[in-house]
């Protein structure tokens, strides 16, 4: 590609170039293989796993995690973290049910909920980006506060949502032969993919994570962009809250406990670096699907659901371990 350059390329630089291009791909390749392996194992162990019905069901269940994981990829790429997404899901989930019960039309409810999610993200983003408090601390506080607000609003009760409206269709409906949540997740993934790799915004997000001071000196509004990813994760969590409320037909402050960990696991499993500067949407997609597969498959082969957590945790550890081994080996040859 660069044949017009004056210097002939030596074999060594060719090798370096290969490693440079292979490095990030290797991680995606690893998780892709892992995903395929999981699918194969479950396909052989049960007849139900590889049926259209189950796959679509799996997609529907994975959708909330996927939607938030896409946004979380941006957050983690900047070198941040958002621990509050589970609590935002609970808050918006409960709030949606309350607003609908109060008789607010469902399109307005959805709009209001998305705004609430974005606003929560904006407040957290402000503390992180403009006040310089570590994202871990701010969102840990958010995790506690927002769950508390949700509990207070519902008094701990589950609030029913009348079915048969456009709202519940978001969780249970079908569109083009796909469950509506799956469609939403696919749209979110496409938007994330394009934004991260093809837009100025995406490049700047990576630049902030890679070297925030260098990014600032080139005139990138680092603080505004840093705050923006939390608005994104807040809004995505609100969307997930809506989808969950619509699917279950109720709003509960106890929804999505531990959700943030599943989301972060999906992102990290996909190969996005926790220290920032490197993010991959395709990897996140595969990570989220792998986690969903494991949960779904273990239930189908009649293993105690308590095992799901153990296996998921072990898979994360092993996958990341393999990745870092593979990765550091490639890196050492530089």
């Amino acid at each position: 590609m660069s044949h017009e350059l004056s210097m002939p390329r030596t074999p060594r630089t060719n090798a370096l170039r290969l490693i440079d291009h292979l490095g990030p791909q290797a991680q995606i390749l690893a998780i892709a293989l892992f995903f395929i392996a999981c699918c194969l194992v479950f396909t052989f162990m049960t007849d139900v796993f590889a049926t259209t019905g189950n796959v679509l069901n799996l997609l529907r269940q994975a959708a909330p995690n996927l939607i938030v994981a896409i946004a979380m990829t941006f957050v983690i790429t900047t070198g941040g973290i958002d621990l509050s997404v589970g609590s935002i899901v609970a808050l918006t989930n409960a709030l949606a049910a309350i607003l609908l019960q109060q008789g607010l039309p469902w399109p307005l409810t959805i709009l209001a909920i998305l705004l609430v999610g974005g606003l929560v993200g904006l407040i957290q983003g402000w503390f992180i980006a403009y006040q310089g408090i570590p994202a871990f601390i701010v969102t840990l506080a958010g995790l506690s506060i927002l769950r508390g607000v949700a509990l207070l609003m519902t008094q701990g009760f589950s609030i029913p949502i009348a079915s048969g409206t456009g709202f519940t269709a978001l969780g249970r409906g079908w569109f083009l032969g796909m469950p509506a949540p799956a469609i939403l997740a696919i749209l979110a993934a496409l938007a994330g993919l394009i934004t991260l790799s093809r837009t100025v915004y995406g490049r700047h997000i990576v630049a902030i994570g890679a070297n925030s001071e260098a990014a600032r000196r080139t005139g990138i509004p680092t603080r505004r962009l840093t705050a923006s990813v939390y608005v994104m994760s807040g809004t995505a969590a609100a969307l997930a809250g809506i989808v969950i409320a619509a699917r279950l037909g109720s709003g509960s402050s106890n929804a999505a406990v531990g959700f943030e960990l599943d989301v972060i696991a999906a992102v990290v499993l996909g190969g996005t670096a926790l220290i920032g500067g490197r993010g991959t949407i395709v990897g996140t997609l595969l990570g989220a699907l792998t986690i969903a597969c494991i949960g779904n498959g273990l239930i189908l082969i009649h293993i105690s659901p308590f095992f799901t957590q153990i296996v998921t945790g072990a898979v994360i550890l092993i996958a990341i371990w393999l990745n870092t081994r593979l990765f550091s080996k490639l890196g050492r040859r530089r």
Partner: protein
Amino acid sequence: MTPFVQARGIGKSFGGLKALDGVDLDIHQGEVLALLGDNGAGKSTFVKILAGAQPQSRGEIRIEGRPVAFASPHDAARAGIATIYQELALSENLNVVENVFLGREVVRRVLGFPWLRRRAMRQRVDTLLRELDAHIPDPLARVGGMSGGQRQAVAIARALDQGGRLVIMDEPTAALAVAETRKVLKLVRQLAARNCAVILISHNIGDVFEVADRMAVFRRGRKIAERQRAATTPDEIVALITGAHPDARTADLAA
């Protein structure tokens, strides 16, 4: 010909401390000017003022004869002053093209959104690197895997593409191996050959004598001497820096 930059009576105080006092200096296009001096002599402060990173307390900066006031590094960049920082300027996880265009990406607006024009940026970087004769085989390789000299080349390409007419380099050869240092010094001459003005801060007298056309020695916040390379020797410059030279003593007494 008016100098590209004229600094007149530049002073900078931090509280009661005078970091810089009454510095007059001209910087010409196509010329490499080296700033020399001990640590704390004021050369970095002077360069920060030129680069818009700090405002001066006293004095005036003129660019092509017109007085300017920089509120930020952005203002200075718009006036054609590009600074190459030692460590902080590049993002290791981005490739050469992304680094050169970081913060100033070439975009095409579709549906109101700015989309990256990756091929256009790539071609521009190819051209720049060829002109600089920089030995970077693959502009799509991450900067993290590159040598110090290659990184300097990327930073210089970036400065040039910004339309930099004065390029400030703070210790560009510090921490570089010998062969790498050679390459960077060659790049510095390339810049001057392109009619850029170059300010070079360096502690390495050998490097300075190799590339600089003119040298200015700072001591205790003042500019105490200015020499053409042809009219001085490394010994004299070292004596000026350390204060052993009669001119330096006179300046010390006056301060």
